[in-house]
């Protein structure tokens, strides 16, 4: 991949354009890493089709069989990023890591539940549940300002 930096004094903000003949995994990865997460739209794939995903539609990112998926109301779409990259990109937003294999969107969370066996679960607004590691509870507390 060739990288070129062109100075245009009339630009108020830097703009990144990727010229390519084909959208590969690498390109998608770079695009995500460069853009900020606040106003960015994620792309996910399912059955070789590429979809745009809005952050507010994502319930959680989870890993399964070495791949990372974004879970929305409609579907689970594969995302070409590693969980630690997602964690970094979404730092400071409502996306919080809750276990080794899951990053959750707190805005989509209804409540937490603790079983008698001492396992903690997150219950999403649509009824989905995800297991939370006790060691990550403090991250949730920090984000909620407790």
């Amino acid at each position, binding site marked *: 991949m060739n990288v070129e930096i062109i100075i245009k004094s009339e630009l108020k903000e830097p703009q990144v354009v990727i010229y390519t003949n084909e959208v590969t995994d690498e390109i998608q990865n770079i695009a995500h890493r460069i853009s900020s997460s606040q106003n960015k739209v994620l792309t996910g794939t399912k059955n070789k089709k590429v979809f745009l995903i809005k952050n507010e539609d994502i319930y959680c990112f989870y890993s399964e069989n070495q791949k990372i998926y974004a879970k929305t109301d409609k579907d689970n779409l594969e995302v070409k990023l590693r969980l630690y990259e997602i964690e970094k990109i979404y730092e400071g937003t409502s996306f919080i890591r809750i276990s080794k294999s899951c990053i959750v969107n707190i805005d989509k969370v209804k*409540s937490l539940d603790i079983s008698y066996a*001492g396992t903690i679960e997150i219950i999403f607004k649509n009824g989905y549940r995800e297991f939370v590691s006790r060691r990550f509870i403090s991250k949730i507390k920090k984000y909620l300002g407790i």
Partner: protein
Amino acid sequence: MLFKKSILRGFLGIPIGVFISTTISIIYSLAFGEIMAIPYGMENSNSLTVYIAQYFVSIIIGFVFSASSVIFEIDEWSLLKQTVVHFFITTLVFFPCSIKVGWIDVNPMSILIYIGVFIFIYLLAWISIYFTWKSKIKKLNNKLEERQ
């Protein structure tokens, strides 16, 4: 890796084990005014043997109790599973060792009382940990409800 962590912790636990056992021995001996070695199973050994046996037993107990604390860091296990496994590991090591050096009387009643105390301590720990988490979760849920 958790295994390496447990071994490291185990070694750090050895001096703690020896310190606790020595302190208890001193307190116990002070009550009687002379050094008390309790040779229940070792009536025929001289006091040096007994002393050294207690030393090694304290090392073993210190190591195992400390090393097994990493069990609580296995996130895939529930708190209940972690507590139960930890209980069995410590019990399986503590009781044979205690009996060997005579810390425990070898009659059924005494043993029952000792096991009872052990179980009671674990129950207490479990209850306090469980309710601590329960109240943490309640606070989080209150905050989450405000945001709905």
